[in-house]
Each structure stands twice: as structure tokens, then as C-alpha cells.
């Protein structure tokens, strides 16, 4: 394989991403012409076959159907040509043919496994075809392999990553991803709606939001954005305004509490409790109320919230964790262990569960089990640190 081609693919990808204007993140296909233009003639000199030459010429002339046809013929004859797969996939993506584009890029990735940009582009295809878990995985892998190595590309990929995290219900990770935009002062109306969706635990994409919900979501997004930007005073005011305008909005107090938690645990606790007055059966609010109380060494106060949460959602790992810890720390060691072991069945690498179990086994005189859990916890903690700082 032509090694220079890797660089060319990356360059094409970067150019392509650069061409996507901020307000069109969700409709990159519009920029097909720029993509084609950006790759002008680069492969011709390196590929002697007539078909490749003709395909490149068609691409140069913006004759997308012809170029796609010709590249399809190339890959039929020489299926090990990464160059042809790349152009075929990117052109198909550009014309909105996301399924064949995805498949073509899959061939390319098979031939070039460490191609971050191709993985990221495949992730964007999968985003369009509704394969959200796959899209998230590919975009995150692409980012980890350097696809987000320029600010513009990073914006596009992080935005889609955050959208996908929200769509898949991983709201706290989504908010962390949106923190990138707040820290860099990047904002627009769609972004505010998107942050609002993550903040208010709504597993939708902005394009799927009903028009009568946009105002509320945008207001929540603006408040969270202010907080994530470091302007806590403005955030406080915006949240107050929000609570006044939308007193029944679920997860709004939870969102503010979540944001406050690291710097103002008391304020956060008050917000979590407030969420429970708006939405008494909110398991997440029950979990976070219990967690905030456990952090303050108030396990007896935490216990009722934890029990409410785990009774409503026994399959919720966080609910099992707070229930286990609350019971353990109020002296009910055996019941605490039951919850924590149940949690490990769902999530065997849950560090908090291993940490709590170490203490629980230790208290109950199971010295060897406790030591095993301690060493496991250390291992998991070290692995997690290595993941963050490889």
C-alpha cells in the first residue's frame, strides 16, 4: 500500500471536515463539492490503471455518479486497493448514500486498521444510518487515533460524540463532552438545544425535538453552558430564571445539582432534593441525593433515598451502589454486601463497588476476600489512571 496515501487520506478528511460549517454539522453532505475539489488529482500520479485515472478525472469534474461507478469497478477488480475504497466511501457519504459509504469505509478500515479519520468518517455514516452505538464507538476510536487533530475537526467530532452519548442515555459523559465547547467559547442555538437534551436527560437528537420543546431545552442548555464556561454567577441566575419559567421541568434541578456537586456539595444536595419534590420517583435524583449524603458521612440520612432508588430500579448499578454503601455504613453489613455483589454482576469492573466491598468484607472478618478486593481496586484504579494519562 502506498504509505503516502495515508497522509493524503488524512489531508482529504481534514479538508473535508474543515469545509463543514459550524451550523451544518448535522448535514455534512452539503459539502460534497468541496470534498471532491480538495482531493483533486492526488491519486492519479500514483495509480497507473485506467479506471483509477478515469475515476479521478470524473471526481475532478464533480461528476459524482460517474466517479462512484468507476471506483466501484476498481474495487471489484482490485479489492485490496485502499485508495479506491476510501474515495468510493467518502464520495458515497458526500452524496448521502450512507449505507454503501459505511461499507466501503469498512473495507478501507480492514485494509488500514489504524486509520483514525476513516473510522471517524464511518462513525459519521453510522450516525446518519441510525447505528448509534457503532457510530459512537467509531467516532471515539477515530478521535483517539488522531482524527480530531485540528480545532475544526475536533468540534465536528466532539459534537457528534456528545449527540450520540445523549442519544444513548450517557448524559454525564455527554455533558463532559459539551464542556469542550464551553471552555472554548464555541456556541450556537443548536448546541444549546443539544446541551439541554443532555442536561434534561432526553435521549433525542436535536433534529427530533418537537418545536414546542426547543425553548425549554435551549434555556436549560444556556444555563448549563454558562456553568461549564466557569461563569457560575450567570449560571445561577439562568437556572433561577429557568426554574421560574418551567417549574415542572424534570431533571432541571438535578442538572444544576450535578454541575454544583464538585464545588458546592451542599448546594448540590439541595438541588437533588428539590428535584425529588418536582419528580418524587426520579431514581437518578434519589441516587444522587443518597450519594451526596454518603460523601458527607451521613449514611443514615442517605439510606431512605438509596432504598427508594433501588426498589424502583434494581437493575440500576448506581442505585445498587448507594444502597449497598448506605446499608454497610449504617451497620447492616450483610445486606450491604448483597447489593454490592449484585452490582458487580452487572458491572464487574465497577471501582466503587470493589472499594466498598473491600471495606464490607473487612468489617465482617473476611480478611482474604477483603485483601483480594483491595488489590483489585488498586489495579482498576491504576488502569483507569493509565487510560486517562497513557
Amino acid at each position: 500500500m502506498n504509505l503516502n496515501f495515508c497522509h493524503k487520506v488524512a489531508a482529504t478528511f481534514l479538508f473535508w471536515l474543515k469545509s463543514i460549517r459550524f451550523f451544518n454539522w448535522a448535514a455534512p453532505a452539503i459539502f460534497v463539492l468541496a470534498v471532491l475539489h480538495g482531493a483533486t488529482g492526488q491519486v492519479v500520479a500514483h495509480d497507473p490503471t485506467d479506471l483509477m485515472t478515469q475515476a479521478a478525472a470524473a471526481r475532478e469534474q464533480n461528476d459524482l455518479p460517474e466517479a462512484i461507478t468507476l471506483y466501484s469497478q476498481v474495487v471489484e477488480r482490485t479489492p485490496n486497493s485502499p485508495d479506491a475504497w476510501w474515495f468510493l466511501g467518502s464520495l458515497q457519504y458526500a452524496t448521502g448514500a450512507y449505507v454503501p459509504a459505511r461499507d466501503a469505509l469498512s473495507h478501507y478500515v480492514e485494509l488500514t486498521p489504524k486509520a483514525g479519520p476513516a473510522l471517524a468518517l464511518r462513525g459519521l455514516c453510522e450516525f446518519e444510518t441510525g447505528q448509534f452505538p457503532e457510530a459512537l464507538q467509531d467516532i471515539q476510536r477515530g478521535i483517539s487515533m488522531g482524527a480530531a487533530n485540528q480545532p475544526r475537526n475536533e468540534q465536528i467530532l466532539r459534537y457528534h460524540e456528545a449527540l450520540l452519548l445523549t442519544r444513548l442515555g450517557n448524559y454525564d459523559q455527554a455533558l463532559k463532552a459539551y464542556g469542550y465547547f464551553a471552555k472554548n467559547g464555541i456556541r450556537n442555538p443548536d448546541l444549546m438545544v443539544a446541551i439541554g437534551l443532555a442536561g434534561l436527560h432526553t435521549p433525542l437528537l436535536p433534529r427530533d425535538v418537537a418545536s414546542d420543546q426547543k425553548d425549554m431545552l435551549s434555556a436549560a442548555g444556556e444555563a448549563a453552558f454558562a456553568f461549564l464556561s466557569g461563569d457560575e454567577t450567570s449560571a445561577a441566575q439562568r437556572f433561577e430564571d429557568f426554574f421560574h419559567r418551567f417549574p415542572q421541568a424534570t431533571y432541571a434541578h438535578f442538572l444544576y445539582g450535578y454541575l454544583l456537586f464538585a464545588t458546592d456539595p451542599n448546594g448540590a444536595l439541595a438541588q437533588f432534593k428539590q428535584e425529588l419534590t418536582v419528580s418524587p420517583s426520579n431514581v437518578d435524583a434519589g441516587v444522587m441525593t443518597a450519594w451526596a449524603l454518603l460523601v458527607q458521612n451521613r449514611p443514615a440520612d442517605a439510606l431512605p433515598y438509596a432504598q427508594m432508588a433501588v426498589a424502583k430500579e434494581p437493575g440500576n448499578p448506581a442505585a445498587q451502589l448507594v444502597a449497598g454503601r448506605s446499608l454497610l455504613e449504617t451497620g447492616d453489613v450483610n445486606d450491604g454486601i448483597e447489593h454490592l455483589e449484585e452490582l458487580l454482576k452487572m458491572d464487574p469492573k465497577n471501582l466503587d463497588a470493589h472499594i466498598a466491598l473491600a471495606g464490607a468484607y473487612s468489617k465482617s472478618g473476611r480478611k482474604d476476600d477483603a485483601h483480594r478486593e483491595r488489590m483489585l481496586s488498586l489495579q482498576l484504579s491504576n488502569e483507569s489512571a493509565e487510560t486517562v494519562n497513557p
Partner: protein
Amino acid sequence: MRVLKPSILKLPLALLVILIVHTSARSQSSHENAAASCAGCHAAQSQEQPHTPMGMGLQLPAADPLFTAHPVLKIQKGPYTYTVETKGSSSIYSVTDGTRTISLPIHWSFGKGAQTWVLDMNGELYESMMSYYPSIDGLQVTTGDEVLDPKTLEEAVGRKLRKTEPADCFGCHSTNGVAEGNLHLQTMEPGVTCEHCHTGSVAHMIAGLQGQGYETAPPNLAKLTSEDMSNFCGRCHRTWATVVRGGTRGPIDVRFQPYRLANSKCFDGADPRISCVACHDPHKSLATSQSYYDTKCLACHALKNSAPPKDAPSDAKACPVATSNCASCHMPEVKLPNGLMTFHDHEIRVVKPGSSYPN
């Protein structure tokens, strides 16, 4: 048998006690007064405690013997010169770059031996960039702050404390300074007093004087399991869980004894012989005799060729090498990376030659 006092006596007596406690608050010797009040019934625990490192965990400058012994402390660090100068009851921490100087009064000295100062600059609290270390009898960079590279004179003063940190600092080094996670310097008493660990002891004392002491006794900490005791002490000395979550690894974590101890294979959270207080009486100064600690090890381990102690754990082996000075090998001294402080490693283990520091 409990003697009930006539109710008419109760109010003036209670007021008197409150008055004593209240007027003693905020003075350097408040914890001595509080301890003296407790000493009426708990003499053995109260006499020495105010003079221990915990009892003097925070000192007010006027009563800090370090400043009396060292009227001027000075160090040059890169482009900055640090001076701690004491005149009368006032101690000033200054840093200059030769052009400008920032001088701040020291209000609080944290620590009895090694000392760090928390400084108030423009309404924000800072941990002083320089600390005093007895091992060099002088100033050096505060442990953990070696990585800082101050670019301005303001940054050179020290590390600005994060929002929740002042409550953590004062919460451990003083008493009644933190309520519901918030710092309340008006009620803060320097050092760790009875009330710090035995929450409710002041109320108990008042009730005791009214003949109701038994009903109001604070929880008996001696009844905590070793695991719970480790977590209790770990609130300030860092629990095992805190250190694991925090990710601090290497010799710098030798300072966190509850974490180190819990990593030991012999740590059994249900066995009182391995509890923090089995070896350390928090009401007394640190015992330094090796033979004292040997007796603690021999509560579980047999001497070579001797019968094991009663109820010895099945895996508690006799040491094949020595019959005394256990800690010198099995709890070796470890220097912090800055070389300025040394701690016995509480991760009890067989230390093999050339083995690296674990966990």
C-alpha cells in the same frame, strides 16, 4: 448511682459551663481549657492530648513556639526570596522578586513539627509555597507543591485553595471550624480537641454536671471495629478508599497510614489487634520505643520457637530472622520524595532486598 441535683440548680450551672466554654473559644488555649473541663472525669485522656501533634495541629502565631525560636526564616527559590519574620506576636510571610514584595500576616500555622501556613490574600485563602521542616530546620517548598512553577509574584505566594479545600484543612487541623461543609472561622478552635473526635462531648460535659452524663455520653469510639477505626482516623489521615480513588501512588502516599495499613495482608477489619488505636493512643504523644511496638506485633505473631499467642490468626507466622525491632524491617522508614520528612510505612510486609515500594 446517679445523683440528681435539684432542678433549680441546673440552669445557673449550665450557664456557668456555657460561659466557660464560650469565653475560652477562639483563644490558643481553648482546647486546653476544654480538655481541662473534660479532665474532671477523663484525666488520663485529657492531660497530655493538648500538647500532642494532633492537639497542636493548628496554632495561632502568637503561641507558636516555632516563631519564638526562629524570629527570621529565609530562603531563596528561583527568582523569589521568601521571609517569615516575627516581631512580638506578629509573624509576616513575605515573598519578593527584588522589585515588588507581597507581605501577608500569618493567621494560622498548620502542624506542630513541620508547618505550613494558610494565608489570606485579597479574601482568598492560599497554602504557603514554603513550609518549615524540622529535618533541615528551615524553609523549603511545601510537600506536593514542588510541581508548581510560579510565573508571577502572586503565584509565588502559594497555591490558591480550591473552593472546598479550606473546610478540609480547618476541618482536620482545628475544631468547630466547619459546619455542614462550610468554614466558620468565628467558632474555630485551634487544634484537635476532645469535641473534634468525640462529637457531643461539650454537651455531655454540661449534662454531666447536671447529673445526666450517662444519657449523653458521645459514642464510644473504642468500640469501633478496626475497619471503622481506620475510616474514622482516615477522615484526616486519608482512608484507604480516598487514596485508591485519588490515584496517589508511590512513596508520597506513605503519609496516609490508614491506606497503607489496609493494604497489609495481615489487616483484618474485625480484629482489634490491628486497629489504629491498638498501637497509637491518640490522647498521648507518639510512642517511639521499638519494644513498645514489638508487643503489638506479638499480640498475633509468635516468637521463633515459641507458642503462638492465644487466638492468633492462622496465617500469623513467627519471624525466622529476629525476635525484636519488628517495625524496623517490616514497617521500614520511607522518605517522602522531597527528602524532608520520613514516615514508617504502615503497609506491614516482608520487605525483600531490592524490592520496590508497593502500591
